[in-house]
Structures are given as structure tokens and as C-alpha cells.
């Protein structure tokens, strides 16, 4: 059905084509502040949701952004499609700042960058039939005539696994999974280059979730779409994305090839995140009943720790020498390149890599009895 993933990874690493082509979408040192209500009356408290994030998305690249709630991942999606404007830094589309776009420019931009939202119940207009919903983007962008539009609608409805007879029905007549199919078809109607998916399957049941993931995967492979997938679920990103960026409190803490990052995390936070995934596979092998449990919770973005945001919860820090520990509190770790090409924002990333892996075979053997 779909090409094996290994093949695609091989192609993109052996030919550095992706590295030379200009990024379709890019964030350059973007920060976004919100003024907390009831706090900021005298220039007071500022909530920094995104803190100096740089990111690039190239043609047909699949990039996952992973983080827990409060990590700023949804704000990131909004900044990318200009639903929010950055406080500082720049979001660019084909090297042009999207902040500078006038109405026609913005229309051109939206023609190429589309979005699939999390909740298919609130993201479809309830008073339009499926045919109207799917035709609207073509009308707005003045693509084709009536006959060719209908043909295009039928084609996409078929591709996302719905029937032509569904066209005259309304969103309320569909289940969650079917609505998400409609939302995906709508995003693809005008052949965008990039689709931003904000938690595309979080609202769906397990068996339906698998269907939608497979659909998103196959559509990407067929059309060489660029994906930016925002999710709290590592399993979703592992399945859909070749590259991943892990966010914590508004900063990217680790970024690189999904396979490498998830198999051998270089940042203690990624490591903990990977260790808390409950795959039935992992759990059945590891009847050890051990999760890598982080203490505490993600701090409020209004009250972010100094230095490395993660230091109060970091399991690695307690194992460092005292002088090294102090560095985590005082000095903000920048995102730096590691020998295997990935980036991590930890002063001691090499130590994390040296450390045993979260699901090393020894773990399993030790606890199997």
C-alpha cells in the first residue's frame, strides 16, 4: 500500500536535496507573549508561551511537534497560520514574512498552507452540506467551474474513504471519524503544500484513530505533502513524522530524526516522555511495571524556572557534580548540534546519551521474574 518508511528515510539522508531547498515555512527566533489577565495592569506579568523558537519545514517534510499541555505547541500552530502574531521574531512562508502579507498575499498563503483541527465537531459548519463545505475552498480560490469542482469533490471524498452519496448530508449525520475525514478532505481540496494538523486524532476512539492515521499517512505519501503534526502522543508522531521537535515550556528541547530521538533521547525530558509511553507492546514485554516517572508537573508559564526550564524536575541533574548542577540553574542551554545531526538543549546531552536507554533489554530481564 504505502512505501516502506526505511526507503524514504534512506532517500532523504543520502541526497541532501531537502537541506538545500528553501523551507516552505519557517520560524526564526519567534517568541509569543500573552498578558495574563488580572496580572499585567502595571506592565506586570507576562506569559511567554513561545520562547525563541526556530523551526523549518521543507517541501514534503513531515515534522512532529510533541509536548504536554502548556508546552506552547498549539500556540506554535496558530503562529504558523497567522491566527496569532509573534511578539518578536519572524514567521516566513517561502522566505517572505507572513506578517507583511496583505489580503491577496494572505489568500495566496492560505492556498498553500491548510489546517486540520483537533475537534471535528466544532471545526465543520453545521449548516452546510458536505458538498458545500468541500466546494467552498474552490470557490474562494476561484479554481475550476461548477462541473470540474464537483468532479474534484467526488475525487477527494473517495480518497478519504467516504461515499459520493454522503455529499448531500450534513456534519451532524456523521460520526467523529467520518467528520475528521471531511475535515481532511476540506484541507486538501485546493492542493496545499503544507497541512498543519493540530492533534488530528486526539478526539477519536482507538480503532478509528488508526484509520485516520493511516489515511493521513497514505495521503502524505501520495501527494508529497508537508505535514506539521502537533500532538501530545509520541505514538502519533512516531507513525506520521520523519522528524520531531520536542517542546517544554515554550522552548524546543530536542529536535532531530524521529527514529533516533525516540529510540535514544539526548534530553532528559524526551527520555522521560518516551519512558512514560504505555505501548501495549512495551508493557507486555516489560511486566516490570516500571515507568520512568518524572516528579512534579510542568511549571506555570507565568513562573518559569531560571536557566534550564526543566531543571527542577530533571532526573539527571541530581546525578551531576555540584558545580555542574549550578550551571543548569544559571545558564540557559541553547539548542546545539550533536554528532549524529540532531539538536538538544541540554548542557549534558552527551551524558544522557551515555546513560542506559529507557527500555534497554536489561530492564526487562531484571524485572521479568
Amino acid at each position, binding site marked *: 500500500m504505502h512505501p516502506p518508511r526505511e526507503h524514504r528515510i534512506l532517500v532523504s539522508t543520502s541526497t541532501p536535496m531537502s537541506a538545500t531547498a528553501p523551507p516552505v515555512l519557517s520560524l526564526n527566533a519567534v517568541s509569543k507573549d500573552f498578558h495574563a489577565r488580572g496580572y499585567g495592569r502595571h506592565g506586570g506579568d507576562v506569559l511567554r508561551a513561545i520562547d525563541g523558537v526556530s523551526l523549518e519545514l521543507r517541501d514534503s517534510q513531515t515534522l512532529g511537534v510533541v509536548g504536554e499541555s502548556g508546552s506552547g505547541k498549539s500556540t506554535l500552530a496558530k503562529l504558523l497560520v497567522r491566527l496569532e502574531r509573534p511578539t518578536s521574531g519572524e514567521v516566513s512562508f517561502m522566505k517572505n514574512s507572513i506578517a507583511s502579507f496583505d489580503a491577496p498575499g494572505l489568500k495566496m498563503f492560505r492556498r498553500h498552507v491548510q489546517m486540520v483541527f483537533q475537534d471535528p465537531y466544532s471545526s465543520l459548519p453545521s449548516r452546510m452540506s458536505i458538498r458545500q463545505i468541500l466546494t467552498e475552498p474552490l470557490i474562494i480560490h476561484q479554481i475550476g467551474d461548477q462541473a470540474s469542482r464537483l468532479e474534484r469533490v467526488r475525487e477527494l471524498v473517495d480518497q478519504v474513504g467516504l461515499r459520493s452519496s454522503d455529499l448531500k448530508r450534513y456534519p451532524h449525520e456523521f460520526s467523529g471519524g467520518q467528520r475528521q475525514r471531511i475535515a481532511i478532505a476540506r484541507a486538501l481540496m485546493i492542493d496545499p503544500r503544507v497541512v498543519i494538523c493540530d492533534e488530528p486524532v486526539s478526539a477519536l476512539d482507538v480503532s478509528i484513530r488508526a484509520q485516520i492515521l493511516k489515511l493521513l499517512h497514505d495521503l502524505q505519501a501520495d501527494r508529497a505533502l508537508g505535514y506539521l503534526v502537533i500532538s501530545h502522543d509520541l505514538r502519533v508522531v512516531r*507513525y506520521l513524522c520523519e522528524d520531531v521537535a520536542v517542546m517544554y515550556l515554550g522552548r524546543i528541547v530536542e529536535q532531530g530524526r524521529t527514529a533516533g530521538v525516540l529510540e535514544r533521547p539526548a534530553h532528559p525530558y524526551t527520555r522521560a516522555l518516551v519512558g512514560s509511553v*504505555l505501548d501495549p507492546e512495551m508493557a507486555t514485554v516489560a511486566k516490570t511495571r516500571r515507568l520512568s516517572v518524572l516528579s512534579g508537573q510542568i511549571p506555570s508559564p507565568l513562573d518559569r524556572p531560571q536557566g534550564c526550564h526543566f531543571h527542577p524536575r530533571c532526573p539527571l541533574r541530581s546525578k551531576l557534580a555540584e558545580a555542574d548542577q549550578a550551571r543548569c540553574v544559571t545558564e540557559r542551554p541553547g539548542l546545539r548540534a550533536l554528532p549524529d545531526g540532531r539538536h538538544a538543549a541540554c548542557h549534558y546531552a552527551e551524558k544522557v546519551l551515555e546513560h542506559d536507554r529507557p527500555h534497554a533489554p536489561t530492564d526487562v530481564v531484571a524485572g521479568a521474574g
Partner: protein
Amino acid sequence: MSDRQPVLEVRDLAIDIHSTRSDLAAVRGVSFSVGDGECLGIVGESGSGKSLTCRALLGLTRAPARVRGGEVLFGGRDLLQLGAKELNEVRGAQIAMVFQDPLSSLNPLWSIGVQLTDVIRRHTGASRAEARARAIECLEEVGFPAARDRLKTYPFELSGGLRQRVMIAMALACKPCVVVADEPTSALDVSVQAQILDLLHQLKAAAGFSLILVTHDVGVGAFLADRVLIMYGGQVMEAGGAYDVLNRPSHPYSHALLECSVAHEDLRPVAGFPPSLEDMPSGCPFEPRCARSSRGCTEPVPVTRFDDRSVACIHPVSTGYS
């Protein structure tokens, strides 16, 4: 069945949902038992009847749902036959519940200290001071930091993870022998989910209660459960030891559910969607989506038992030792 003494036994539970046209069977012929100190995971998608089943255990079935038949045996009594007063003595004291969303199940108008001491005093008749001491103890047991100074905090002041800890402390306050947890971590972030699951596991080992864990996430079930019950369309599809069932699923639905949950390279999702109550197949509820279905599947399916497993399928994927 289990090698441990059953603490709670459910026999042939049936729950209807009343609608204007007819009564719809939401749960049909569900039977299981929970052993002493055991964790039973009830795994299913939405609409599988898992939450209705566990609510029925505590007499929390509310209109339009109605228990049509069956027995819930606990301590030699059928809980379904008890009146409100008798039930209140069991609920909270001997069988406690942890709900999915701690924000809506805690009372927003009362501090957590008041809510905790209320439960303790009602069931044990302790004095105010005793109840307060016990409340602090409970909060400390669930890893609530600085419990003594924070009895006066209100639920809205706490994070999701801490609220869930308060819910668990409340459930365990009267040292129940059975705890029913309905999706206890579904509203939480992954790192917090790991904390709460770890906590439940430790508390269970220390206090020795039996745990009924209702979840849609096979991973959560696999982590905590000793035995699992896989539900679909209001029926039990497969039950058995967690390790066995999740490693070698026998029912095609269990197989499909695992296949969907793992999301490795060659994801093979099962087509179609779960049946609606109005439109429930007469035989196996999974029959319309099942690749192995035959004509016999449209008849009510007998339950096959082997080893310590029961499977409601006439074309199981695997049987016995393989």
C-alpha cells in the same frame, strides 16, 4: 477464573437504555469476578458499555439507563438489590470510586480538607480532629506535597494531577477493599499519567485493595492489570490474564484493538466503526467489521473457555497453547 478468592462477582449483568421507541440493550450478559488484591482492567472504546458496567457496581445507574438483570455479589449480598441506605454504607467505605475528571467530581465550593474529612467522618464516625489527622495521612500517602498546610485549598487551585491525587486519597480514606477507577488518567498529561499509574500500583501493593480499572487505552490496562476484560458493543469479547490476552489475543476484536494501538510501520486499521445501540447486530457485535466472520456469527455466540481465558467467538485467532 482467578486463583484468588473473588471479592466481587458480577453475573449476567444487563443494562438497558430507555428510549422513546424501545429499550436498547447497552450491556448484555457481562460476567466477571475480581480477586483479592487483583487488578482487573476493563478495556473498550466509547460505547462499549465499560463505564455503564462499572457504575452499575456502585448503584450509580441513572435514567435513561436501567439495570435489567444480573447480580453484583459483594460480601454475600447482591448490591443490585440493596436500598439507598444500605448502599451508602457500602459505597465509599468498602467500594470506592475514582472518576475520570477530578474537577467535576470534586465539589468546587468546599476545600479539599472539608471534602476529605466529610467522607471519613460519615463512614467511621471519627471526631473532627481524628478525621483531620486521617485526611492529612491520606494525602501524604498519595504523595500530596505539604498536605498539612494545604487542607484549606480549593480544587480550582490545584493542577489536574494533584486533583486526581485528592480523588484517590478520598477513595482510599476509609480503606475500601475494592476501588473502581473509571479512566483515572485520561484527562491528564502523559508524564502526570505515569505518576498517577505508578501511584495506583504502589498503593495497591501496599494497601492490598482490589482494583477495577476502566480504560480505553490498552497500554494503561497492560501496565496495571493482572487480568483484562475486553468489551465491545456492550458485551465481553475476551477475558483472561493480561499478559496472555495482550500477547496472544484470541478474539479478532482484541487482535484488531491491539493492532490499532501499537501504531508501528504497517498499521492495519480495522474498517468501519462501532455499532450504534439502535443498530446492534443480533449475534456478535463485531461481526460486520470482522474479517473472519461467517454466517454463524449472526447468531448469539457461545463463550469458549480454555486455560484461564474466555472468548466469545466461533473463529478465534488462536486457542490454547501455541
